[in-house]
């Protein structure tokens, strides 16, 4: 849908545009229809300062002139002032900002330096001086304002251009030999158009404020021509006796500024909407999620008492139109001191599952089935207070991107110490000492030097080790690691995996690791759970999965791994794509891509079965896979 149509679908935007259209129309028409108002020195002096009446809908001013007609005629000069400033602003700021952002180098440095210089100028003073040189010249005043305000917009355009210049499709276009002008106009300009329009309407509001302010000071428009600011000034001079007179022009200014600001906001919302899918209103869905969670019936804790016991867990995301289930009927457990891996490809629901365990589903997500047993409590029904007691103290969490999982404004040692003080009630000196101990446990050779660094001063591998240290501050029994090594170099990954193994041995800590890398599974995990399209399709100890995969998906995935394929051969491929949540078929979700599929596969949902003890699979054709 085109941008304009998307914009106008919002009632607020429509109202603003309509109002501004009216204001513009009045500006054009009114002085033509009422030509005498601009030069009217005085009206009927005996009818001065009257409040609204039928003959004068907004009353009369101190010199007996009709307020409404002055308001309508004064619209034009006010609007022209805004337009003048806006034109100068855009003509200066947009090309310079684009040039500085896209070309970089000297152009960028010179333009930025000039902008910094102009930023240091006192705008109001300069404008007043200019106006003293060109008295009552609105053009001079507004142009000056435009020039002085341009650096601000230029900076915004520049910082909007910089990330787009780094986008790969721009690089690809450059590599294709497309001309700079083409790239600027066809690729970059459309992407920043949204930002420019938003800022333009906000700056128009500011320009309106400046224009009316200067008119208020009687510097801009020569009497007796009306202007909104001038009318406020006129009213102010008789404020104590006739307070009404400042109301009509003030209201006109306020409503127009409101319309311009609102337009800017709605344009910004409309641009963002294009790149992302619509999200249901958070508050409503969060409330609904809470209510539904409490409404579910209680279940009894499992008898065997593992550390973590997830039973038939189902998770959905609430949408505006319908709810979408993303995880269905997931059951697995983690024993104390065990390392369990959840492996699957993107979209299979593995990360959502771990988020649900610690109660950190995004606003519109909710658990709508099953239970999560930990420490004798069902976490899926626990209150926020209960969950907070567990987080960090019993269950630690480490995520994928180490560089952004630490607060950039605090030193890394301080962040670990904070967790220590929080969970173990240590004093500051004790926390500092323990922080160094923890860092030494993380195989840092110089913990003191690391602790005083900020996150941006250490490498990704180091940051991940710091994040693990912080997660361990409360001495948790279970560490959940969501793709902890995906963003790291392979040599660094090896260190982290070794660290995790060591932690399991020295601290008797269980680890639940989410990964897409089968090598990590082979290296680290005692048991593995394979997920596909929101379900568990295979579950067993690691060696069995590799030796005899019992689900066609696992088998195909292992076969297409370049690590395992013979050299220079075509890799076996799984045809088709994963069915996304919301379009899951009724029967086996892998059947459309499975080479062993028969009609019975897609007929009904397939339950998990255990052809061997402790090696379970969700496949009715498992006999085809069991090698003799």
């Amino acid at each position, binding site marked *: 849908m085109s941008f304009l149509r998307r914009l106008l679908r919002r009632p607020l935007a429509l109202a603003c545009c309509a109002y501004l259209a009216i204001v513009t129309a009045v500006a054009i028409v009114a002085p033509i229809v009422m030509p005498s108002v601009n030069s009217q020195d005085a009206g009927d002096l005996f009818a001065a300062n009257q409040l609204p009446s039928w003959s004068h809908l907004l009353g009369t001013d101190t010199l007996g002139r009709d307020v409404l007609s002055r308001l309508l005629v004064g619209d034009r000069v006010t609007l022209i002032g805004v337009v003048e400033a806006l034109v100068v602003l855009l003509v200066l700021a947009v090309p310079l900002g684009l040039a500085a952002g896209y070309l970089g180098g000297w152009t960028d440095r010179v333009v930025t330096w000039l902008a910094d*210089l102009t930023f*240091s*100028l*006192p*705008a*109001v*003073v300069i404008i*007043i*001086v*200019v*106006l*003293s*040189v060109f*008295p009552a010249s609105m053009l001079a005043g507004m142009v000056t304002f435009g020039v002085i305000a341009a650096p601000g917009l230029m900076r915004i355009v520049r910082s909007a251009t910089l990330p787009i210049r780094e986008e790969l499709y721009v690089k690809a276009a450059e590599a294709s030999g497309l001309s700079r002008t083409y790239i600027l106009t066809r690729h970059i300009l459309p992407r920043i158009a949204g930002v420019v329009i938003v800022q333009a309407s906000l700056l128009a*509001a500011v320009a309106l404020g400046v224009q*009316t*302010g200067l008119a*208020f*000071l009687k*510097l801009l428009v020569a009497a007796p021509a009306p202007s909104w600011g001038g009318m*406020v000034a006129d009213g102010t001079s008789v*404020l*104590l006796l006739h*307070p009404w007179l*400042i109301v009509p*022009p*003030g209201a006109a*200014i*306020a409503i127009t*500024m*409101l319309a311009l*600001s609102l337009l800017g*906001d709605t344009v910004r919302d409309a641009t963002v909407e294009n790149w992302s899918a619509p999200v249901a209103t*958070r*508050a409503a869905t969060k409330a609904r999620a809470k209510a539904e969670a409490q409404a579910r019936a209680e279940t009894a804790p499992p008898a065997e008492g593992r550390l973590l016991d997830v039973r038939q867990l189902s998770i959905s995301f609430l949408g505006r139109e319908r709810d979408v289930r993303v995880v269905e009927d997931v059951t697995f457990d983690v024993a104390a001191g065990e390392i369990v891996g959840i492996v699957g490809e993107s979209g299979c629901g593995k990360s959502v599952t771990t988020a649900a365990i*610690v109660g*950190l589903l995004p606003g519109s997500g909710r658990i709508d089935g099953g239970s999560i047993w930990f420490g004798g409590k069902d976490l899926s029904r626990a209150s926020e207070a209960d969950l*907070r007691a567990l987080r*960090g*103290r019993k269950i630690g*969490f480490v*995520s994928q*991107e180490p560089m*952004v*999982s*630490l*607060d*950039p*404004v*605090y030193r890394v040692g301080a962040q670990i110490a*904070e*967790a220590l003080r*929080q*969970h173990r009630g240590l004093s500051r000196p004790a926390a500092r000492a323990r922080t160094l101990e923890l860092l030494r446990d993380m195989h840092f050779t110089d913990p003191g030097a690391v602790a005083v660094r*900020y996150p*941006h001063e250490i490498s990704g591998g180091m940051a991940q080790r710091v*994040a693990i240290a*912080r*997660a361990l*501050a409360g001495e948790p029994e279970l560490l959940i690691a969501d793709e902890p090594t995906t963003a790291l170099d392979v040599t660094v990954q090896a260190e982290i995996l070794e660290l995790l193994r060591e932690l399991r041995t020295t601290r008797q800590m269980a680890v639940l690791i989410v990964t897409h890398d089968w090598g990590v599974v082979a290296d680290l995990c005692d048991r593995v759970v394979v997920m596909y399209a929101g379900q568990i399709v295979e579950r067993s100890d690691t060696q069995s999965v590799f030796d005899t995969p019992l689900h066609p998906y696992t088998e195909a995935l292992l076969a297409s791994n370049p690590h395992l394929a013979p050299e220079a051969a075509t890799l076996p491929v799984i045809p088709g794509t994963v069915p996304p949540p919301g379009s899951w078929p009724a029967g086996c979700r892998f059947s459309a891509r499975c080479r062993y599929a028969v009609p019975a596969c897609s007929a009904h949902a397939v339950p998990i079965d255990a052809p061997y003890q402790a090696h379970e699979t969700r496949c009715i054709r498992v006999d085809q896979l069991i090698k003799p």
Partner: protein
Amino acid sequence: MNPVLRVMARRCVMAVPLLFVVSALTFLLVSLTPGNAAQEILGTSATPAEYAAFNRALGLNLPLYEQYWDWLRHALTGNLGQSIFTGQPVVQAIGQRLPVTLSLLVGALAVSAVIGVGLGVFSALRGGAGGRAADVLALIGFSLPAFWVGAELIVIFAVWLNWFPATGYVSVSDSPAGWLRSLILPVAALALYGIASLAKQTREAMLDVLASEHIRMARVNGISPVSIVFRHALRNASIRVVTVLGLLAVGLLGGTVLVENVFALPGLGSLMVTAATQHDLPVVAGMVVYFTVIVVAINLLVDVAYVWLNPRVRVR
């Protein structure tokens, strides 16, 4: 070098050529004016000889660059000349009015910062209806021009309720209570825009930060909500808010001119307007210098605060 000192040094170094350029430009501009001081004072019916005598007496017949050089020499020793109209030393004239404008500016900034940031944090945490209400209030605060708000405040609080004086200024040395009373309405008029702007920006910055990954990780590892909001979120959000504060300060500086007019406060604004219309060159040049220094000082404070708050821009 300490990054803070380096930032300060850079600003000061940039300020020097800036002041040269700005004052030179002012001289140039004022000399272009159609009228001149002589005509303003002696009227339009004086004889050419009288104009010439007047100009010679005040050194206005000299070529422009000589006048500028003269002014510059004296300025560097702290003497900004005398007003052509009142004969009062410019430094004195400005010095008398500076406290008024500064009281207004700093007062409005302080009120905006405290209430605006507070409202912003509150609405970011509450969300939902509270957030929407805050947005609406902010929008209204943006849209009401300060001079109009000032006038309405006078009508309501000075005329109808008679709680505060409508116009006039009491200096703090005369009577602190009176000083406060004379400033309350003007500061309120000026601060409304500031509160609205800061509330909105703070709310957006807080929401952005609260959605960031490091906050999620802190939460999932059990850091208390209070710590998360005040130690982590606010600190990160303040980086953006500080920049907005700086821009706001410069904008409010312009607003003081308008508000001083409405409330008849004897500040720099009214002097500026009169001097400019009268082509009182020494006063105008002096004002430009003072205002530029104020803006540079504001930008410097913002830079320092930014570097202090954001470790990422400190280059070791």
